[in-house]
C-alpha cells in the first residue's frame, strides 16, 4: 500500500565546512559515532520525547506479557456481560462513554463487556512485536536486496528489480488467506499463538521488502559512484565488505525514515488481516484486532478510539524518534 520514499539523509544543513571550523578546534578528544549521536539526540527534545514514549511502550509491552501471561493479573478476555445492555438488546455498554467507570477506565467492549484498557494493555506486546519484527524483516531483506541490486547493477539489478515487481504485484491477501487457512497449529515446537504471530510477521515483513528495496537500490546507485567505494576496492576489499561496511552505514538515514513509516502500515496490516478473519487467533487481544472488531460497532466510537489512539501514539513516537535519530546519526547534519 505504501510507498518507498526516496529520502536522502541529508536534509537542510549548512556548509559542511561550518561544522568543521566550529567543532574542529574545540573538541579535540575523539568521540565515537554513538557518543556524537547521543549528544545530538539529547538536545532534540522532541526526539527524546519520542524515545521516552517508545521505551514506555516497550516497558508496557513487557509488563503486559508478564502480568497477563505469567502472573495472570490482567484479564483481557474476561467477560462483563452484566455491564452490557441486554435488556434493550442494544448490547452496548451500560453507562456513558462506553461504560467508563472506576473498574473500567476506558470503558468496555460491546456484546461481551471486556475491559478495553486490559485488552489494549495485554495486546500491546503482540502489536508491537508484529509491527517491529515485520518491519525489521522487510528492512533486512529490502536492504540486502536493494544494496546488491544497486551495487552490482547489470543483470543482477535487472533480476532483483523485476523480483521486486513480482512481489509488488503479488496478491498478498490471497497468499495470506491461503496460507493462514492451511498452516499447522504447531510447528518448530512453538505454541499455536506463536506460530500465528510468526506467520503474520513473516507475511507482513516478507511482502513489504520491495518498497525499502527500491529506496535502498536508488540510494546505492548514487553512493556507489562515490570515490570511497573505489578507495575500498583499490585496497582490495571484497564485495560484501563494500556492501555492508562501506555502503550500508550511509543508507541508515533513508532506511530509518522508511522504517518508521512502515511501522503503522504494519500494525494496520495486521488489523486488515484480522478484519478479513486471518489475524491473530481470538480471543487474544491485539490493537489491530481491536480496531477490526470495533469497525463492526462504528456507532460506538469509544471502542475504536482507544486502540486507535494507542496506534497513533506509537506511530508518532516512532516517527519523531526516527527523525531525530536520523539527524543525529548523520555526521554532517547540524
Amino acid at each position, binding site marked *: 500500500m505504501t510507498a518507498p520514499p526516496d529520502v536522502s539523509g541529508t536534509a537542510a544543513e549548512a556548509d559542511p565546512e561550518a561544522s568543521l571550523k566550529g567543532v574542529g578546534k574545540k573538541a579535540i578528544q575523539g568521540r565515537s559515532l554513538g557518543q556524537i549521536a547521543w549528544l545530538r539526540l539529547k538536545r532534540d527534545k522532541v526526539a527524546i520525547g519520542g524515545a521516552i514514549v517508545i521505551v514506555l511502550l516497550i516497558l508496557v509491552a513487557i509488563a503486559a506479557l508478564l502480568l497477563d501471561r505469567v502472573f495472570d493479573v490482567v484479564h483481557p478476555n474476561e467477560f462483563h456481560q452484566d455491564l452490557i445492555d441486554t435488556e434493550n*438488546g*442494544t448490547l452496548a455498554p451500560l453507562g456513558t462513554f462506553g461504560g467508563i467507570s472506576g473498574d473500567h477506565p476506558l470503558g468496555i467492549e460491546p456484546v461481551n463487556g471486556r475491559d478495553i484498557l486490559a485488552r489494549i494493555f495485554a495486546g500491546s506486546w503482540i502489536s508491537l512485536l508484529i509491527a517491529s519484527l515485520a518491519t525489521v524483516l522487510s528492512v533486512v531483506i529490502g536492504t540486502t536486496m536493494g544494496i546488491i541490486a544497486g551495487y552490482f547493477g547489470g543483470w543482477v539489478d535487472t533480476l532483483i528489480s523485476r523480483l521486486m515487481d513480482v512481489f509488488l504485484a503479488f496478491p498478498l491477501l490471497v497468499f495470506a488467506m491461503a496460507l493462514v487457512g492451511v498452516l499447522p497449529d504447531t510447528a518448530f515446537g512453538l505454541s499455536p499463538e506463536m506460530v500465528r504471530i510468526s506467520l503474520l510477521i513473516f507475511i507482513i515483513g516478507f511482502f513489504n521488502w520491495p518498497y525499502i528495496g527500491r529506496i535502498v537500490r536508488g540510494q546505492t546507485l548514487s553512493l556507489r559512484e562515490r570515490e570511497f567505494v573505489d578507495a575500498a576496492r583499490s585496497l582490495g576489499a571484497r564485495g560484501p565488505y563494500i556492501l555492508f561496511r562501506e555502503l550500508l552505514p550511509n543508507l541508515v538515514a533513508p532506511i530509518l525514515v522508511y522504517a518508521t513509516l512502515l511501522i503503522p502500515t504494519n500494525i494496520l496490516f495486521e488489523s486488515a488481516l484480522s478484519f478479513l478473519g486471518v489475524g491473530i*487467533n481470538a480471543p487474544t487481544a491485539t490493537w489491530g484486532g481491536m480496531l477490526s472488531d470495533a469497525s463492526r460497532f462504528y456507532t460506538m466510537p469509544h471502542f475504536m478510539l482507544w486502540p486507535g489512539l494507542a496506534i497513533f501514539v506509537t506511530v508518532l513516537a516512532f516517527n519523531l524518534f526516527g527523525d531525530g535519530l536520523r539527524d543525529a546519526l548523520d555526521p554532517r547534519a547540524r
Partner: protein
Amino acid sequence: GGGTSSSGGSTGGNGGTNTPAFNAAMTTIFNPSDKKGGTVRVANAGTWDSLDPGETYYGYSWNFARTYARTLVMFKPAPGDGSSELVPDLAESLGEASDGGKTWTYKIRKGVKFEDGSVVTSKDVKYAVLRSTDKETFPNGPAYFEGYLNLPEGYKGPYKSKGVDTNSAIETPDDQTIVFHLKQPFGGFDYFAMMPQTAPVPEAKDTGAKYKEHVIATGPYKFDKNEIDKGFTLVRNDQWDAATDPNRKALPDGYQVTMNVNADDIDNRVISGDLDLDITGTGVQPASLSRVLGDPALKAGADNPSSARLWYTSISPTVAPFDNKACREAVQYAVDRTGYQTAYGGTFSGGDIATNLLPPQIPGASKFDLYPAGADNKGDVEKAKAKLQECGQPNGFETNIAYRAERPKEKAAAEALQQSLGRVGIKLTLKAFPQGDYFSQFAGNPPYVVANKLGLALNGWQADWSDGFGFLSQIVDSRVIRETGGSSNVSVRVPDVDKMLDEAIGETDKSKRESDWGAIDKRVMEEAVILPGVHAKALLVRPKKLTNVFVSAAYGQYDYLSFGVA
C-alpha cells in the same frame, strides 16, 4: 385478490394496521394498500447463489423468486402463521398422492404463459425438474428430487443423458398433467413442489448454466437488465395474467436490486429510507442494532421475526474425552446460555435461548430442557463439575473449538464458550477456519476433526421448510456423515436416531410423524452431542416507503411478493 385473506390476529378493516409499533408487521399487514406503481429498491450485502430457480438454495431467494417464477405450489402470502400454509400456484390444487404416497399428481393451470407469450405446459415443469438434477451444471440447488424421484440408474440430467426415458420418474400424460413417481413414499411432497425447481423452463430457451442470466419469467415480473453479481432490475411481465394467479397482487412496477453492498451501508440506507429492503432478511448489523433498539422511534419501525434456524455447537464424540458422555454433559451444564445468546446478538438479533434442537415453529417441536442451567441461565457449575468428576476429568481438560473466521458472531460465541467452560476447567482453544472450506476440509471432515482435536465446532442449521424432516434429516442422520468431509452432520452418530428417522419418514400419519420428530430431538439431546445455542431471530427494519409489509413465518422475513410502493 383472492388469496390474501388474513389469518388470525389481524386488526383494522383491511386486515392491517398503519400504526408503527415494534413487531407491528409480525401478524398483521402493515400499511395495507392496493396502490400500484413505483419501484422497490433492494440491496444484497452479498450475491445470489443463483438467480436460476433450478439451482437456488437461499431462503430469501425462494421468497423473492416468486416475483418472477411460478412453482407448482407456494407458501401463502399471508402474515404470521398463515404463511406456513401451502397453496396451489401454477398447479390448480395441491398434489394428489396415490400409491401410498409414492405417486404425486398435479394439474397445471390453463392460460399461464411465459414472458415470450408461449403457454406453460407440464413438459416445461418436467424439464425444469429434470435439469435441476444435473448437479454439475447446477451445483447450488437442493437435491431432493434426485434423491426421491424414481429416476433411471445413472441419470445425469437432460444435457448429459439426452434421450433417456425418464417416465419412470415424471410423466406428462398431457400438457396439463404432471405425475411424479417416487422411490419411496413421501408424505410431504408438496414441499418439494413448492421449491423453485418446479418453476417451468422452456427447453428451447434453456441455456444451461447461463440461464440465470435471463430467466424466462412466468410471474408478474421479468428480468430487464441483469448484471451477474452486480444487480438487476425486474419489470412488469405483460404476459402474466392476474386471472390465472390468485396469490399475487403485483403492485409495484418493478424491482431494482443491487448486490455486494456493504452491510452497514444497507442498514443505514434502509433506516434513512434511501433503500427499501435488505433482501437477505437476516437482520441488522451490530452497529445498527444498538441504534435501532436504542431509539424508540426506530424500534417502532422494526420487526423481530424468528426463523426455523438453530445456532448450535457440535460436540464430537470422536474426540477424547468427549467419547465419554459425562464429559459432553459437563459442557451442557457448564455453558452460560445468556452469554451464548448475547454473542449471537442478544434476544432481538440473536434469538431465543434454545434448550433443544427443533425450532418452535416446526410442527411437533416441544421445548424441553435436559440440562437445566439455573434460573439465570448462566449454567449449573456444580452439576458440570460433578459430571466432570464422573467422566474422570475432575480438573477439566483442554480441547479446541472451531468456528468460521468470517463470522464475527461465531467468533463471539466461541469466546463466550471459552469463558463459561473455563469456569469448570474446560480450556478451549479457538480455531478459525475459512468458511469456504469449513465443512469440506475442517470441521466437517471427520479425520481432520479427530487429528486436530476439534472437540467443539460452531454450527447452524435452518430447515428448508418448517417441517421436522426438513430440519433434522441433514444434521442428525449418521449416514450423511461423509468420511471425506463435506457433511453438515458433524457429531451425531447414534444408531437409534437413524432408525427413528427412517420410521418417521415412512410414517404417513401426520400427527404421529410430528411427534416422532420430537422424540428424535429428545434422543439426540440425551446423547449430549449437540449443544443448542439459540433459535434464531432477526431484527428487521421495516421498509419505510412500502405498503403491505408483513412477516412471512414460512421464510422468517418479510413477504417479498406482496409489497406495494406508497
